[in-house]
């Protein structure tokens, strides 16, 4: 207790300001940050916000306190379509048997330069 001599406690904790007001849940936003020019935006985490503008401001405060970014995207989670982990194998299978898409598939003599 003794350490709170100048401390806050604004208002009476017994006062129940919160009840009776149905709290609508703020949507979830996923946050993507471009670390510096020349790099892609990378997913860094998520947050909740009432609207897009607040989401952007909160993302700035939360994920770029030390110049971690030059650009931020916020995207509502429900706007993202993702592949399902269950269909992992069949979904990515088309890429699996096409080794000829890789440069190492082709046999070229070492003596041929710049290839």
């Amino acid at each position, binding site marked *: *207790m003794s350490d709170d*001599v100048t*401390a806050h*406690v604004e208002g009476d904790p017994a006062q129940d300001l919160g009840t009776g007001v149905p*709290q609508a849940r703020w949507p979830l936003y996923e946050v993507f940050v471009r670390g510096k020019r020349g790099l892609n935006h990378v*997913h860094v985490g998520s947050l909740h916000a009432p609207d897009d503008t607040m989401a952007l401001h909160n993302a700035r405060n939360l994920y770029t*306190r030390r110049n971690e970014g030059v650009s931020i995207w916020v*995207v509502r989670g429900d706007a993202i*379509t*993702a592949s399902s982990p269950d269909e992992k194998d069949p979904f990515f299978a088309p890429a699996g048997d096409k080794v000829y898409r890789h440069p190492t598939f082709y046999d070229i003599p070492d003596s041929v330069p710049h290839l």
Partner: protein
Amino acid sequence: MADETTRLATAAGPDGTTDVPEHLRRELEEAFERTVGSEGRVEPRDWMPEGYRKTLIRQVAQHAHSEIIGMQPEGNWILRAPSLRRKAILLAKVQDEAGHGLYLYSATETLGVDRGELTAKLISSKQKYSSIFNYPTLTFADIGVIGWLVDGAAICNQVPLCRSSYGPYARAMVRICKEESFHQRQGFELLRTLMAGTEAQRAMVQDAVDRWWWPSLMMFGPADGDSPNTQQSMAWRIKRHTNDELRQRYVDMSVPQAEALGVTFPDPELRWNAERGSYDFGAIDWDEFTAVVKGAGPCNAQRLAHRRAAHENGQWVRDAASAYAAKQEARRREGVAA
């Protein structure tokens, strides 16, 4: 990356797994064990055992709550910081702790819980936070000692968790650990400044060290013999070392730092053991630990009352933001219709 996002809409979910037929379930379990056993990462929408999910939620939520409650003992000194430089540093540090809490709440949400629900559990004492924050900060030297010893212990605990098997938790820890180094260094620098001051200032530092040393050792949790869940958590790779291993590492790191600073730890049994290549130290007062965990610490009631008041007094701000968002949205729709 997007798999973290759509979890709420499409995840097999915490209970979606119950109707999985037995043979399939065993297959899933084996795949999970293989991933974890080979240092792979579990990602949000992967199948995971219920125990793993529950243990993680508890562990990460408790960690998040600790960051949030941890703002209080230091926040109380922002207005009393002795210079603008110290005030700016302390403000930045406390703001970081809020950020740590939010990174971790964000990680828990990938496990299918809502952070509002976690806040409700914190303020109704259904979930815990680190006991260290139930001790009072009596002088400004406490701010330095918290940075040095308390953040130091947190770093010791957290660095190995950057390799936790659960992807979102591990990534949050990487971010947190990067920021913690500033916390510890500013604390140590603050103490060095005081130690270069007057006799009274040096005494203030020693007094703060005397009060915080034992509680900081308790931050690593019960002795290994009294920590029944450790083995399972280690097998799941959501804990990487036992409590006693980490505690020993912390003691070994801290003693030379105390010498550099010119303070002593309040433990007559603390001495170098050449055979073990480590410092021996005295017995921890586990009765005190248990009492503080159960709510009898000097500040438990105050910390929770303050958190509850902050939450309740912030309700009108949240309501106003929601109302504004709704109004903007309605206007946008009207505009579209017209």
